[in-house]
């Protein structure tokens, strides 16, 4: 080690930003893996442009990756970066306004030419004109140093310059004391077939590390001690990966073969990609001709006794609505995953929002209740998927799983569960006729319900003696024959609703986190706001104000004690990334006055912002 100073920090937020082609996501992923291996708690969020190949060096082409890591458990990818790594003028310009004064900027100067500066609207060079005087700036020719380091390799200048992201990663790894062995192994594997590229990237990575260690420019490095996480085996996981694994696990724990019918759509496509890799688990993935066919095929598979799943985002849910309604009428298990994004219409495909709640709740013709489960963190997507399958199979109903872009792409360390600790899900297929017909023989009634759950029998084709026909026309209670009888329709509508309402008996009560026990304000949330609300509540408590926090994971039905919880506080504050959709449901259902805090910027809430809102609400109570 050099004799440089080491400063200890409790947490750091780094953002890597560059052109889409600069490999910032990979750089971020590797820094994350190194950080996880080191033992910090962490949370990450990538941010990429909607355009696949926006012109190089332009603002729309900037891609970034933010990572928050700490010596204690953390809940979000962080509000504002402490460190920005900017690979070109566009990356600097696009991210500068997110930086607090005093933040560190590591910037690659190689592209700060008059032409590229002009492209992003800089009249003068911000590195020289004092625009960055409030920051600690390390203006370095990262590209030039990378090319120098790779001079001995048989590479063109352009090829050599591509390794600049590894140089930057090496430098940052040195600054924060991250081990780089894992990245070296990763590069060895990734470029096994291209030895020159492999060796060049490893050389660039090492050169970046060595530069940090030897240059005068960096006087100190930082140490962030490992966090005291609960004992166990961990891995890093994104929401979409966790959701995919949750579905595979549910298939294994239920014995139902998994069938995914899906049409590519951002930000859900990664689930289709992931599940298509797991054929050895008996997973069948079907890339359908459209959203409607995706859900239709899933429902057809469910009729045949498979675990039918479809994955999409808000626009796809709109297209699938009629089929979801059919599933409500057929009373077959079906999992519909909505990875929400900014709307309406095409909206903001790569940005997050939670504005599909009312669509999930009501977006069908007729009275068509559908249970809704919403995960609260990337890792929770795994358990939410299992829970959605439990409800779907137990109650023979479609279930909407509401994730969002923030959870889908965000990542956090996840404690790997023991398989035997995962719930077993019993399909309980019908095997025998269930109704006498007066003359000593029996017949099969597809709509004769279980008294407790009100679920109907799931009799799959191939089961002798249980041949039956089902459809979207109203069915007579019990026999399932077509019925236009007014009383019967009223009964069936109410029974389908009662079945979904009855799920509340099988879900845990809404629990409240109120360490002081003195809170008069309850902050309620659902879905991906869990992290920011939790982080904000901690800040508020640290500032001496009591506040209670509760988070709804089941949105239809609500946990049975929801009304009691809401009524036991003087005031309820509900931040949502929509214009108050859950608030509308809760007000209507429980007649509780709810104070909403709504922002629809396509971005998650910041903890600081919510802390201000909560403090203000407390002082107002």
């Amino acid at each position, binding site marked *: 080690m050099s004799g440089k100073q080491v400063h200890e920090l409790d947490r750091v937020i780094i953002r890597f930003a560059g052109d889409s082609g600069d490999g910032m996501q990979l750089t971020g992923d590797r820094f994350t893996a190194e950080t996880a291996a080191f033992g910090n708690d962490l949370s990450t969020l990538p941010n990429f442009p909607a355009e696949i190949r926006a012109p190089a060096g332009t603002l729309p082409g900037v891609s970034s990756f933010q990572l928050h890591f700490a010596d204690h458990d953390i809940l979000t990818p962080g509000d504002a970066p402490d460190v920005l790594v900017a690979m070109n003028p566009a990356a600097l310009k696009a991210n500068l306004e997110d930086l607090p004064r005093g933040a560190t900027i590591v910037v690659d100067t190689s592209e700060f030419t008059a032409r590229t500066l002009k492209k992003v609207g800089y009249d003068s060079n911000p590195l020289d004109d004092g625009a960055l005087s409030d920051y600690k700036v390390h203006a370095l020719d990262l590209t030039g140093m990378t090319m120098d380091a790779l001079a001995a390799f048989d590479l063109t200048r352009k090829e050599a310059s591509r390794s600049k992201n590894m140089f930057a990663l090496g430098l940052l790894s040195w600054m924060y004391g991250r081990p780089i062995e894992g990245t070296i192994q990763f590069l060895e594997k990734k470029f096994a077939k291209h030895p020159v590229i492999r060796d060049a990237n490893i050389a660039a990575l090492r050169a970046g590390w060595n530069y940090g260690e030897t240059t005068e420019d960096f006087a100190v490095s930082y140490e962030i001690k490992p966090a005291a996480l609960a004992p166990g085996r961990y891995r890093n996981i994104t929401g979409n990966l966790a959701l995919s694994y949750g579905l595979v696990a549910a298939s294994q724990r239920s014995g139902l073969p998994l069938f995914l019918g899906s049409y590519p759509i951002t930000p859900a496509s990664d689930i289709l990609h992931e599940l298509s890799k797991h054929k*050895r688990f008996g997973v069948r993935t079907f890339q359908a001709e459209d959203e409607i066919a995706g859900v239709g095929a899933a429902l057809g598979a469910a009729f045949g006794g498979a675990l039918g799943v479809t994955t999409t985002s808000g626009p796809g849910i709109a297209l699938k609505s009629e089929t979801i309604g059919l599933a409500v009428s057929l009373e077959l298990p079906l999992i519909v995953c909505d990875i929400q994004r900014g709307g309406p219409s095409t909206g903001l495909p790569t940005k997050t929002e939670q504005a599909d709640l009312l669509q999930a709740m009501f977006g069908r013709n007729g009275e068509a209740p559908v249970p809704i489960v919403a995960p609260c963190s990337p890792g929770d997507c795994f358990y939410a998927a299992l829970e959605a399958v439990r409800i779907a199979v137990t109650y023979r109903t479609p279930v909407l799983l509401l994730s969002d872009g923030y959870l889908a792409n965000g990542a956090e360390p996840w404690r790997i569960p023991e398989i035997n600790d995962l719930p077993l899900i019993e399909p309980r297929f019908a095997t025998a006729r269930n109704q006498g017909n007066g003359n000593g023989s029996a017949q099969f009634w597809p709509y004769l319900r279980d008294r407790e759950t009100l679920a109907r029998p799931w009799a799959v084709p191939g089961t002798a003696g249980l041949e039956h026909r089902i459809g979207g026309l109203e069915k007579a209670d019990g026999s399932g024959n077509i019925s236009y009888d007014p009383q019967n329709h009223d009964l069936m509508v109410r029974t389908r609703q009662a079945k979904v309402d009855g799920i509340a008996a099988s879900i845990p009560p809404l629990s409240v986190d109120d360490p002081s026990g003195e809170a008069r304000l309850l902050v309620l949330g659902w879905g991906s706001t869990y992290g920011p609300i939790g982080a904000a509540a901690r800040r508020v408590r640290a500032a001496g104000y009591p506040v209670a926090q509760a988070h709804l994971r089941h949105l239809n039905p609500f946990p049975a004690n929801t009304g009691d919880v809401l009524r036991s506080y003087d005031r309820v504050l509900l931040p949502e990334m929509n214009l108050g959709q859950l608030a509308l449901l809760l007000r209507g259902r429980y007649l509780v006055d709810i104070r909403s805090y709504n922002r629809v910027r396509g971005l998650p809430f910041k903890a600081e912002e919510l802390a201000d809102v909560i403090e203000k609400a407390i002082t107002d109570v």
Partner: protein
Amino acid sequence: MSETLSDITVELGVPAGLRGVPTTDVPETKKTFTSDQEVRWCPGCGDYAILAAVQGFLPELGLRRENIVFVSGIGCSSRFPYYLDTYGMHSIHGRAPAIATGLAVTRPDLSVWVVTGDGDALSIGGNHLIHALRRNVNLTILLFNNRIYGLTKGQYSPTSELGKITKSTPMGSLDAPFNPVSLALGAEATFVARTIDSDRAHLTAVLHAAAAHRGASLVEVYQNCNIFNDGAFDLLKSPETRDDMLIRLEHGQPIRFGADLDKGIRRDQVTGALEVCAGDDPAVIVHDAHAADSSQAFALSRLADPGTLARSPIGILRQVDRATYGDRMSEQLETAVGTQGPGDLAGLLAGSDPWTVG
């Protein structure tokens, strides 16, 4: 569902399309396949004849009744599943091929049938139809074409002739009709046939061939709607005209028609199009349903007049073998298990670089 498969002997020598579907030794009759539901089509509707033909022919397949599924969409014809004592689903408008796809690829032990109409299959569900055909999902699709919307009481359909006067087109329809057989051939279908509700023997023979085909089979059935489009196929049905108006295709036979087979089909040497010639013309072409290239089948399908349907070819226009979507998918699953071993959930969840705390 593997247990249902393993304890049943699957008869050898069953047709390719039904391979994997358990058979039975218990004799079946029309009654075996007749449900207790009252049939509710208009008296005189062509659907009755088709239902009778299907109920009469299913016993000949010798399949276990519980392994047969009929999936339909919306429309008069889509009531079909209710009347058959098999498994069935009356789904939503146009989506039956998509729903049946999910069922067929997950349950190769089922014989899956789709019943649809011209509006259901070609208008609202056109996309699903062409993709089911292109993928070659092992389905038998019966498309009842009555050239009208019956259930919604008489609007023109995508197969109605141009200028059709209906409730929604009082001055005549403005759009050219689809020829379902041409469409199916264009969609890369491996089995395409056409038959008529009133010709029981022909209908049954075509159903047999369709069921035997492994892959997506499209059978267009000209079906009379005596309420809203009565007589739409009279030219093809009446004893006076039918011989000159229908071209009956038989694989390996010269294509001749007319009362005394006085007409034939030959190829125009200059344009390559097919044209009517004298029955004894030496250039009369021979029908080859199994030709790898679909051009001749397509040219045959174009002989029919889009308005009157005069010179409609009936029979099997095309039957070629191509691996089905479901079989290919099953193969990929087997390959994955063969090369990587069966799935190990604990290994999957742990991933490639887990770390341990505490």
